[in-house]
C-alpha cells in the first residue's frame, strides 16, 4: 500500500479514455462500478469538450456481484454498439472490475459484433495513466493497421509523407503542437498523412502504414506503437522531440534525413518565425543568467525543458525529476548532463520537500508544482501534464516547434518579470512619490490623493468620458491605505533591526547608492553577515566585506 495525497497520473483506464476520446468513431465499453464516470468530467470540464467521451460504463453494484455481472457487461456492450454505431470498439475493465475477472474481451467476442473489438488488459494495480494510453494506442494500431506496400517517394514522384503519433485528448497542448508541427512539416516539404489518435478515425489507423515514416511527438503515449510500426511495417520514426529551438533544429534535421530532403534548406524554410533565440540574446535578458531552476514533469517535457532552460535561457538547472517511471532512464541521463540529481517519484510530498530544500528561483513543473510554488513564493511556469483547465487556453499556444519555443520564452520569463515587478513595488513602497496614497503619475502632477478626488468632479464636468471618471476615482479607493498600511510595517521592521545591529549613517548612505532592485538583498545579507560576526555597528567596510562574502 502506498500513501498518496495527490496523484500525478490517473489509473490506466483513464489513459485508455484519452485515446478513445481522441478518436472520432471508436467506442470504449468499460466494466466499472458507479462513480468511475467521474472521469467524464476531465474531458468535459478541464478540456471543455463539447461531447461526452465515447465511453459506456456498466455501472455494477454490490447486489450484482453475487449475480451475473458478465451478463451486465454483454448487455451494455450490445446496447452501446446499437446506439453509437462505432467503427471499432475497445473493451476493458477498471480497477474494481479487474478484481471480479469477468473477461470483457471474451464476453465481447461472444457478441459477434460486425466491427473490430479490441480487448484491453490494463493492470490497474501496477500501471498508470500514460502507460494505459500507450498500451491502448498500441493495441488499436496492432488490430487495425492494414499492410501496405512501401514505395519510395522520390521514385513515385510525390512528396514524402509521415504520420504524427501520440497526441491524445486531455494532452498538454497537444492540439496546438499538432497544428504547429503539421505546418512545420508542410513548410519543409513533407506531407502529413495521419495524425493519431487525436481526431483520427478507425480508417485512418488502418492506413498508418501508408506513410514513409512516423513522427513520434509524445513517447509517453506512442513509443510502443511507433516501435511496432517500425518492426511490422518498416516505418522508421523520429527520436528528437521538437521542443525549444535546438530541439526543433535537431528534429528538422532528422526529418530531412528520413524524408531525403536537404537539411539546411529545410531549416531555412522552417525557422522563419523563430524569435526566442534573439529575445534571449537581447541584453534585457541578461538578468536571466544563472537563475536556479527546478524542473519536474513527464519525462519528455522535463528533459526538453531542462535543455531549453540551460542552453536557450541561460538558467542553471538545479534539479530535474519525473513522475513517469517508464522513462526514468532518460531523466537520469539529463540530470547527469546538467550536473544535478534526478528525482523519480510520484509522491507529491517528496517533490515538495526537494523543492523546499533546493530553494530554486523558478520552478518549471506541473499544476501540482504550481501549488507548491505558490506556497513557497517561488515563480513557476507549467510545462507538463497533469493538466488543469488553465492548460487549455483559447489562443494557439504550442510547446513544440519554433512558435513553441517563442511561447516557452514568454511563459517562463513572465513569472520572473512578475517577481521582479513585485520586488520593485516593495522597494519603492516608501518612496515619497510612489507610496500607496500617491496618485498615479499619469494623472498629472500635484494630485495628492484627497485633492485628486475633490478635483475630479468639477474638472471633468460634462462630456468627461467614462475612462477618465474611473481613473479619477482610483485615488479615493486607495486614500485610506497609508494610515494603516505598509508604511508602519516598514518602520517597525527597521526599529527591530536597530535593536540588534545599527547602520552607521555613512553606511546607510552607501546602501542607498546600490541599485534599488538589489538593495533589499544587500541590506539583508549585510545584516546577516554582521549578526553572524557579532558586529554591532555596520560601517561602509562591513557593507563591502559582506558583499565580498556573499558574491558569487
Amino acid at each position, binding site marked *: 500500500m502506498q500513501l*498518496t495525497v495527490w496523484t500525478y*497520473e*490517473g489509473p490506466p483506464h483513464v489513459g485508455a479514455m484519452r485515446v478513445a476520446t481522441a478518436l472520432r468513431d471508436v467506442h470504449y465499453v468499460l466494466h466499472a462500478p458507479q462513480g*468511475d464516470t*467521474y472521469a467524464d468530467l476531465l474531458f468535459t470540464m478541464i478540456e471543455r469538450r463539447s461531447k461526452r467521451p465515447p465511453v459506456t460504463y456498466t455501472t455494477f453494484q454490490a447486489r450484482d456481484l453475487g449475480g451475473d455481472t458478465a451478463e451486465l457487461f454483454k448487455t451494455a456492450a450490445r*446496447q452501446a454498439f446499437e446506439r453509437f454505431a462505432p467503427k471499432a470498439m475497445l473493451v476493458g475493465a477498471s*480497477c*474494481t472490475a479487474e478484481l471480479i475477472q469477468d473477461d470483457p474481451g471474451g464476453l465481447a467476442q461472444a457478441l459477434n459484433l460486425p466491427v473490430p473489438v479490441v480487448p484491453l488488459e490494463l493492470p490497474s494495480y501496477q500501471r498508470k495513466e500514460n502507460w494505459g494510453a500507450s498500451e491502448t494506442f498500441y493495441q488499436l494500431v496492432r488490430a487495425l493497421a492494414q499492410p501496405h506496400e512501401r514505395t519510395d517517394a522520390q521514385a513515385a514522384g510525390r512528396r514524402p509523407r509521415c504520420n504524427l503519433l501520440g497526441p491524445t485528448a486531455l494532452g498538454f497542448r497537444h492540439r496546438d503542437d499538432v497544428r504547429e508541427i503539421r505546418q512545420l512539416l508542410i513548410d519543409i516539404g513533407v506531407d502529413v498523412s495521419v495524425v493519431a489518435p487525436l481526431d483520427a478515425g478507425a480508417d485512418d489507423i488502418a492506413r498508418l502504414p501508408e506513410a514513409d515514416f512516423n513522427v513520434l511527438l509524445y513517447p509517453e503515449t506512442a513509443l510502443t506503437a511507433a516501435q511496432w510500426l517500425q518492426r511490422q511495417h518498416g516505418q522508421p520514426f523520429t527520436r528528437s522531440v521538437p521542443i525549444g529551438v535546438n530541439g526543433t533544429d535537431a528534429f528538422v534535421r532528422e526529418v530531412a534525413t528520413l524524408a531525403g530532403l536537404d537539411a539546411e534548406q529545410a531549416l531555412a524554410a522552417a525557422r522563419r518565425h523563430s524569435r526566442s533565440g534573439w529575445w534571449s540574446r537581447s541584453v534585457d535578458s541578461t538578468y536571466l543568467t544563472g537563475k536556479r531552476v527546478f524542473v519536474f514533469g513527464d519525462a519528455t517535457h522535463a528533459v526538453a525543458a531542462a535543455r531549453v532552460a540551460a542552453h536557450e535561457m541561460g538558467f542553471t538547472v538545479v534539479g530535474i525529476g519525473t513522475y513517469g517511471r517508464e522513462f526514468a532512464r532518460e531523466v537520469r541521463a539529463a540530470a547527469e548532463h546538467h550536473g544535478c540529481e534526478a528525482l523519480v517519484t510520484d509522491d507529491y510530498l517528496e517533490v515538495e520537500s526537494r523543492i523546499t530544500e533546493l530553494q530554486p528561483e523558478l520552478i518549471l513543473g506541473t499544476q501540482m508544482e504550481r501549488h507548491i510554488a505558490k506556497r513557497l513564493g517561488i515563480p513557476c511556469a507549467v510545462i507538463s501534464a497533469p493538466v488543469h483547465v488553465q492548460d487549455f487556453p483559447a489562443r494557439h499556444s504550442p510547446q513544440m516547434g519554433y512558435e513553441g519555443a517563442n511561447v516557452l520564452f514568454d511563459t517562463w520569463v513572465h513569472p520572473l518579470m512578475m517577481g521582479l515587478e513585485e520586488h520593485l513595488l516593495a522597494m519603492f513602497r516608501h518612496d515619497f512619490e510612489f507610496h500607496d496614497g500617491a496618485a498615479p503619475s499619469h494623472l498629472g502632477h500635484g494630485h495628492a490623493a484627497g485633492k485628486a478626488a475633490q478635483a475630479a468632479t468639477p474638472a471633468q464636468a460634462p462630456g468627461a468620458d467614462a475612462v477618465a471618471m474611473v481613473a479619477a476615482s482610483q485615488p479615493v479607493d486607495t486614500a485610506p491605505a497609508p494610515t494603516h498600511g505598509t508604511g508602519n510595517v516598514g518602520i517597525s521592521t527597521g526599529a527591530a533591526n536597530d535593536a540588534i545591529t545599527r547602520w552607521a549613517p555613512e553606511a546607510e548612505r552607501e546602501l542607498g547608492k546600490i541599485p534599488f532592485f538589489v538593495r533589499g538583498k544587500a541590506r539583508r545579507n549585510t545584516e546577516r553577515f554582521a549578526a553572524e560576526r557579532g558586529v554591532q555597528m555596520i560601517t561602509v567596510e562591513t557593507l563591502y566585506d559582506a558583499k565580498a562574502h556573499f558574491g558569487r
Partner: protein
Amino acid sequence: MSPVIPIRPAGGGCTDAPVLRERGQREVFCGLTGIIWLHRKIQDAFFLVVGSRTCAHLIQSAAGVMIFAEPRFATAIIDERDLAGLADCNDELDRVVTRLLERRPDIKLLFLVGSCPSEVIKLDLSRAASRLSRQFMPRVQVLNYSGSGIETTFTQGEDACLAAMVPTLPEALATDPRPSLLVVGALADVVEDQFSRLFQQMGMDRVQFFPPRHSDRMPAIGPNTVYLLAQPFLTDTARALEARGLKRAAAPFPLGVEGTTLWLQAAAAVFGVEAAVFDRATSPGRERARVAITRHRERLQQRSVFFFPDSQLEVPLARFLSRELGMQLSEVGSPYLHRQHLAEELALLPEGTPLSEGQDVERQLDRCRAAQPDIVVCGLGLANPLEAEGMTTKWSIELVFTPIQGYEQAGDLAELFTRPLERRTRLVA
C-alpha cells in the same frame, strides 16, 4: 404552532405518485466524494481512503483544485503486492496509518474509508479500525465507513460517515427529562450559525448539530433527544439514531422560505415554542428571503427545469422551484427516493410531476432532449455537452458545495438558477 404557512391538505401532491425506476449507466459520483465537504466540516478529522489510484484520482478531480498543501484526506493505494498476498493488507494499513498519524499530530479522528476494491477483496476495515483505535486511543479515535460506488451514491457517503459516528456519541444524562434537539446533516458553518441564532431567539437552548466541527464536541444523545434531518440523504444515520432511542421530527427540508419555515416549526415544536415567539423570531428572515426571491421569480416563472439524479436534494429543490419560483418540473430524477423522509416534500410537489429514481443515462438524455427544458440540472460530465447542444444547464454539484439552506440563502439558491439563463441572454451570438 404558527399558522404562517397553511399545512397542505393530505392526499395532494406526489405522495402516492408513480416513480419511473431505471437501471443502467449512472452518471453520478460515488460516496467517496463526500470527503470533500466532510473534511472541511470536521476540522480535526482525517479521511483515509483504502482503495485504488482511481479513488485518489476521483477525489482530486472532484475537488477541482489542490489548494491545500497536505489536505486532511489521502488514499492508501492497494497495489499488486497486497493483492497477490505478498504483503498482508492489515500490516500494510497499520504501517500507513502509523506513518500518517506521526506526520499529523493535529488529527483526532481518523476515518478508514472503504472503496470498491477494498469491498470486493473483502478487506475488513471495521476490524482494522477497532484494532487501530485500541492502539491510538485516547489521542486518536479510528472509525470506518464505506464510500464505495458499489454501495453508495455521492451524498450517501456522508450518510455512511455519520452513521459510523452515531454509536460513539455520548449518552445524555438519563435523569434529565427536558427535550433536546439534534440537527443532523452537514451544513455550512454560516448556515449553522444562522439557525443557532434563530433557535436562541426562540429560547431553544438545547440544540446540537451533528456532525460537529470538532471531534471533541460530539453531541450527547438520549431518549429525550429528537432529531431533525437537515439533509434528505441520511437513511442509515436516521436508522442508527433510532436504534439509540431517538425520534425523528418530520419536516420538509430547509430550502426556500416555505421549507425553512416548516423545518424551523418542526424544531420549535420539540420545545413547545409559542406561535407568537416563532413568528417574531422568523419574520425578519422570512421577509428578507421573500424580497430576495421575488426578483428571481420574475425570471424563472413558467420556465421548465429537468433534474438528472445527483445528490438526493432534487425533490426539495424541485419543490422550492415550483412553489416559490413558479417553475415547471419536466422531470425530477433522484438516485434514491426515500418515501418516508421525503413524505412532506412529495406532498408539496405538484400533482403529476414526472419522478424517476436510479438512472439509465442514455435514456434519460433522450427524454431530456425530447422535453427541451429551459434549464437542466446535471453533473459536470453532462453539462458542457448539453450546453453544446443548445441547452442551459446548472451544475448540480454547486448545489451541494454552496450554502443554500435557510432564509438568508434562499435568494442565493434562486440565483443559482437564474444566472445560467441570464448568461445565455447576455451572450449575443
